[in-house]
């Protein structure tokens, strides 16, 4: 068979591969701007924290309703938002740094989640929750992913400008508009929403990789924000596609395959990227 055919064939021949691909691609597109803004806001680690924080909610959902998408999503969403909100509230009231208050809350959430799963006594594989399986994306999960991605892309377009100013110069935005806190809140909600819908497909921890790795890698390719977001989306899509192919041909678990491809993209960017990459030599004379 022609080599190029290998790159497409699995997605034509198998429904589960097609669903995993479509779901992964839309997720990569909607997490790209979120990841880039998380980095700009110096909140790169919040994804990890929220991903752990989702666990008790998802576990509760599982306890009451079994393995159902709405229950897991609602539970995860509640726990993730609750956690992000609680830590933001503590920060606001006490002046504790945001990363410290998140770091304090997420072990609590993780431990609570594991405890609930233990008490529930049912066999929901913790590994499945944390690392997921892209190949188990069913019709319902896929449509959930499409809705979430569409919604978050539209919402990000709407809040792009206030969010940008709130990130760069919050004092300035506060004097001209009251949209800052609203944009910040909506942005965090979108992060949680994407992580929750992603954790069903590729696992809570793996979706963080898909959100952050391309975003961090993109910083080595441009100095312009729209370009950063586009590069990040393209890198994310390539990772999903190549990762799924690797997992198909070599029988690897899909979530880690996708994230490792994204990781390779990150390392290559660090070495070859034109903006402060390791191999880039600064021109001695400017070309002006």
């Amino acid at each position, binding site marked *: 068979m022609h080599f190029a055919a290998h790159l497409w064939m699995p997605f034509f021949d198998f429904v589960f591969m097609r669903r995993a691909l479509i779901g992964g691609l839309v997720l990569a597109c909607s997490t790209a701007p979120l990841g880039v803004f998380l980095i*700009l806001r110096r909140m790169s680690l919040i994804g990890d924290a929220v991903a752990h924080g989702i666990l008790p909610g998802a576990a509760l959902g599982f306890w009451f309703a079994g393995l159902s998408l709405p229950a897991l999503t609602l539970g995860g969403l509640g726990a993730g938002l609750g956690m992000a909100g609680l830590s933001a509230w503590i920060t606001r009231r006490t002046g504790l740094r945001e990363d410290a208050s998140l770091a304090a809350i997420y072990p609590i959430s993780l431990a609570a989640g594991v405890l609930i799963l233990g008490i529930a006594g049912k066999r929901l594989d913790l590994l499945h929750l944390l690392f997921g399986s892209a190949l188990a994306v069913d019709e319902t999960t896929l449509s959930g992913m499409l809705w979430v991605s569409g919604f978050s892309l539209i919402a990000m377009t709407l809040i792009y400008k206030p969010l*940008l*100013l709130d*990130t*760069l*110069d919050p*004092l*300035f*935005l*506060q*004097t*001209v*508009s*009251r949209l800052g806190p609203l944009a910040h809140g909506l942005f965090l909600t979108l992060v949680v929403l994407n992580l929750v819908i992603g954790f069903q497909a590729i696992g809570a921890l793996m979706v963080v990789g898909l959100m952050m790795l391309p975003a961090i890698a993109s*910083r080595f390719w*441009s*100095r*312009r*924000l729209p370009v*950063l977001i586009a590069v990040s989306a393209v890198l994310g899509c390539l990772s999903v596609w190549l990762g799924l192919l690797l997992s198909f041909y070599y029988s690897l678990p899909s979530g880690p395959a996708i994230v490792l491809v994204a990781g390779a993209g990150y390392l290559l960017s660090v070495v070859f990227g034109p903006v402060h990459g390791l191999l880039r030599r600064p021109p001695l004379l400017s070309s002006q």
Partner: protein
Amino acid sequence: MITCTALRWGAPGQPLTPPVDFTLEKGSLTGVIGANGTGKSSLLKVIAGLQKPLTGKVSVNVPRRGGLAFLPQQQHLDRQFPISLQELVAAGFWGLQLSPQQRSQRLQAVLEDWCLSGLEQRPLMALSGGQLQRALLARMSLSESSVLLLDEPHAALDEEGQALCWKHIHAWHASGRTLVVVCHDLASVRHHTQNVLQIKSTGCLLGPSKELIRPQPRMQVA
């Protein structure tokens, strides 16, 4: 225009002064002086509504949003942020209803005013401190606010830049706006402003700058 009654400000539990009362008239140009740590910057933030007073009240007689423009010290900006100088300056259009042509004309005009032409596409990280400061001042020039609060606008500016900055401050003043300028250079404050607000840990003094600030002796070299 700006009225403070029994105002105390500072970190919670650590007011910087006894309760103070003062009024800055509409259309006045006031310099704020005082040693480091006396609370000049935080006073501006309190007036701008960005920080809550500990006790007392500040009332600024302008619309809640857009009526007041605030130039903070520039250290709070992330120099790695991936936007260009032009995008930073154009943020000053926030809330103004203008056609694209009007926008680009005004933008060109303020960039020229602040000697920033030719630097439009420079990323923030490639700007010098003085260029960034002029960009922030240019952003402020776009606003139509009637109250302007400037926190050390001359910091990072060279002699030419400082002169340019004072020129704009006088132009804003002449157009009837109310200005409050924090500045450490007493000679300039004495020369350029009518009134001065002196902050000390024992209280605030508001008076004509020629009276509150004695003429600065010329620095004797060798």
